[in-house]
C-alpha cells in the first residue's frame, strides 16, 4: 500500500530538518534566517510532493535551500549588515558543556574558515564532508558533472587545510 503523502513528508522532515538547518546555518551564520530558509524549503517540498513524485527529496531540499541562500546573498547588498551581533553570538546547537572546549573551538574555527572560502568551495565541503551526501547527489544539487564535483572537493579541502594549518 502506498504511504500517505503527509506521512512521507513528516518522515522527510524528521530525517532532514536538522541537517538542512546546519547546512544553512554554516553558510549564512544567522540562526533566524537559517530557520526561515529551512521552513520555506520544506513548504516548497510539500507543494512539489503534492504535484508530482520526488525521487530524492533530500537532494531536492538541498537544492531549494541552496537557491534560497543564493537569493539571500543577492539581496544582502541592498539590506546592509545582515547578522545582528546578539544573534551571531547565540548558539544554535546543544553543544553546551557536554563537549570539550577544544572541540567547540575546532567547530568555531572550521565554521569561520568555511565562511572564508569561496562559496563554491564551502558548498561542496558542507554537502559532501559535513552532510555526507554522495558525489552523485552533490552533482545533482549543483547541476554539475561528478568529475567536476570531485575536482572541486579536492581543491576545496586543500584550501580549507591551508587555512586551518
Amino acid at each position, binding site marked *: 500500500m502506498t504511504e500517505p503523502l*503527509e506521512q512521507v*513528508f*513528516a518522515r522527510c*522532515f524528521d530525517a532532514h*530538518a*536538522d*541537517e538542512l*538547518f*546546519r547546512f544553512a546555518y*554554516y553558510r549564512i551564520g544567522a*540562526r533566524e534566517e537559517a*530557520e*526561515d530558509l529551512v*521552513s520555506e524549503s*520544506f*513548504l*516548497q517540498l*510539500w*507543494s*512539489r510532493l503534492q*504535484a*508530482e513524485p520526488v525521487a530524492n527529496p533530500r537532494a531536492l531540499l538541498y537544492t531549494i535551500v541552496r*537557491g534560497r541562500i*543564493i*537569493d539571500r*546573498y*543577492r*539581496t*544582502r*547588498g*541592498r539590506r546592509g549588515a545582515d547578522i545582528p551581533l546578539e544573534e551571531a553570538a547565540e*548558539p*544554535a*546547537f*546543544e*553543544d553546551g558543556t557536554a563537549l570539550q572546549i*577544544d*572541540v567547540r*573551538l*575546532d*567547530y568555531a*574555527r*572550521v*565554521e569561520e574558515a568555511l565562511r572564508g572560502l569561496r562559496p*563554491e568551495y564551502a558548498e561542496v*565541503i558542507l554537502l559532501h*564532508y*559535513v552532510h*555526507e551526501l554522495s558525489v552523485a547527489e552533490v552533482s545533482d544539487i549543483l547541476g*554539475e*558533472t561528478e*568529475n*567536476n564535483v570531485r*575536482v*572541486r572537493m579536492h581543491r576545496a*579541502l586543500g584550501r*580549507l*587545510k591551508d587555512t*586551518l*594549518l
Partner: protein
Amino acid sequence: MNTDRQPIESTLSHMGTRPLRTDVRERIRARVFDADGHPRTLSPIRASDVSVRSPISIFGNLTGATIALFLVFSSIGGVPLAYLAEQGQLAVVTRADHRSAIALDYLEIATDRATRSGDTAAYDDLERAIVESTIELDQLKLMGEPGRYTMEECRALYARFDDQLDELESAADAARDPRLSGAVRAALGELDTRVALYGPRTESTNE
C-alpha cells in the same frame, strides 16, 4: 585548532551530527506543520517560486513579450502591466533558458521605462527586474542542457545580461543614484562569480 588530534575530515563529519537546540527544531516544525500536524501550504507569493509544469511554445513567449512592450507604460495600482505580463509568462514557462530570456526582455523594458520617466516607482521596478534576471540566469546550467540549450547559448545569455548591467551601471552613476548603483553592482558581482566558474570547469574537463 587540534588538527594533529583529529583530521579535518573527521571534524567536518562530526559537525554534521551536532544536535540542534530543541527550541530551534520546534520553531521550524511550527512553521512547517499546523497545530494538528498537517503540513502548511505555501503562501501564494512563494507558490510562484515552484515551477509549473505546463509547457509553452517559443511562439507563446514571443507573443507575450510583444504584448508586454505595448503595455510598458501602463500600470495598475502602480504595478506596471508589462511586469504582470512577464510574471504571467514566467508562471507557465519551466525551461531555464526561456525564463532567462523573458527576464532579460523585461529588464530592457524596465530600463527603458526608468530612464525615460525617472520616477521612483520606475526605479523600484528596475531594481526588481535586476534581481529577477539574476535569479533566472542563476538557474542556467553553465554547460547547457541536452536538447535545450548549449554552453554557447548560455554564455550568450550571460553576455546579454552583462551588457545590460554595464549600461545600467553607467546610467546609475550618471544619475547619481546610489541605490540603483548598489543593485547593479551586486548583480554584476553575482554574474562575475558565476561566469568565473567556467574557468575551473574547463580546467577540470581537461584533466
